[in-house]
């Protein structure tokens, strides 16, 4: 891909990122932060690709460490977001549809 193509993807994603959360209600600020945090755990994909294409032991060690850290970020991030939202649902008992 050319540099311009990367720049296009980047700029469009910036606008999308602003747009997609622009109407968030303030009680959801923390879960949204946590969810976004889990999403950037996708660096795990980068860590796998970088580790899987090296033969050098130093790079392999750094790469494996990166995989462990990225997995903690991704798996832990989604799990903690879900728990956060789970305890949200109970005290607030929102509008119908969500039976007892």
């Amino acid at each position: 891909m050319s540099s311009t193509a990367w720049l296009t993807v980047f700029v469009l994603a910036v606008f999308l990122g602003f747009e997609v959360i622009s109407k968030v209600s303030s009680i959801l600020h923390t879960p949204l932060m946590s969810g976004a945090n889990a999403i950037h755990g996708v660096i795990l994909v980068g860590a796998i690709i970088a580790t899987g294409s090296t033969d050098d032991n130093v790079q392999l060690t750094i790469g494996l460490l990166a995989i462990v850290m990225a997995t903690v970020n991704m798996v832990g991030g989604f799990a903690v977001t879900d728990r956060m939202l789970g305890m949200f649902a109970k005290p607030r008992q929102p509008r119908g549809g969500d039976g007892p």
Partner: protein
Amino acid sequence: MTGAWADTAYLIAGVCFILALKGLSAPRTARLGTLIGACGAALAVIVALTTPHLKHLGLIIGAIVVGTAIGLPTARQVRMTAMPQLVALFNGVGGGAAALVASVEFLRPGNAISDAATADLAAIGFTILVGGVSFSGSLITFAKLQELMTTRPVVLPAGRWITIGFAAAGVLSAVFLVPWPSTALMTLLALVSLVFGVLFVLPVGGADVPIVISLLNAFTGLTVAASGYVLGNTLLVIAGTLVGASGTLLTRMMAAAMGRPLTGTLFGAFTATASAAVG
């Protein structure tokens, strides 16, 4: 999985992340949004694991198992009140992982050091700098919220000038990495950025810490995008940029909800010392 299929699967994962953020913006769809995001992430990891000619598959899967064994129980068992600092910790390891990925790419013989394009080296320098700041900064926010250290602003004597000095040193090492790439300079850059991350967060008071976590979260998103550029992976660029942009906006909204201007939060302690010194 080969070329076109892998790219299509990455595209689906990217769409899942967009839907996840969208879902998380409304109470009724928030849990579904998290689920969609997790499915997208799982799909992306499976695609990455089936990359053709991937070496060390056993070790990689082992590392993923170790990471899951650390992350999942921690997230399940943490007390409700301790969740914000756990998010900070997860964010920190994510930023650290991005910096490590960039350093692997930098150390790759014949790829980074001699032949790399200027833009690649610039992206690597950016990732190590900002990823390092995010890592150490998040650890300090964790320590503050966990009350492992004082939650009050810590202001070192002449702290402002030391912080500015480390910031300048970090940016200069990242910039010099482009014309003079060397392992020594990369190590220096990593160390300076770690110290700067600590200095950056120390003066922030307890109540403002969540805002700083959100800001560091946006930082990590941008480092993920930059390392995606280095690796030539569209999904990382899209996901990282989404988090970087939405995280920046979210930081501003959080600051506004608390009635704190963002600059006041970040530089409040500096201004406080200045006025205390005057008064």
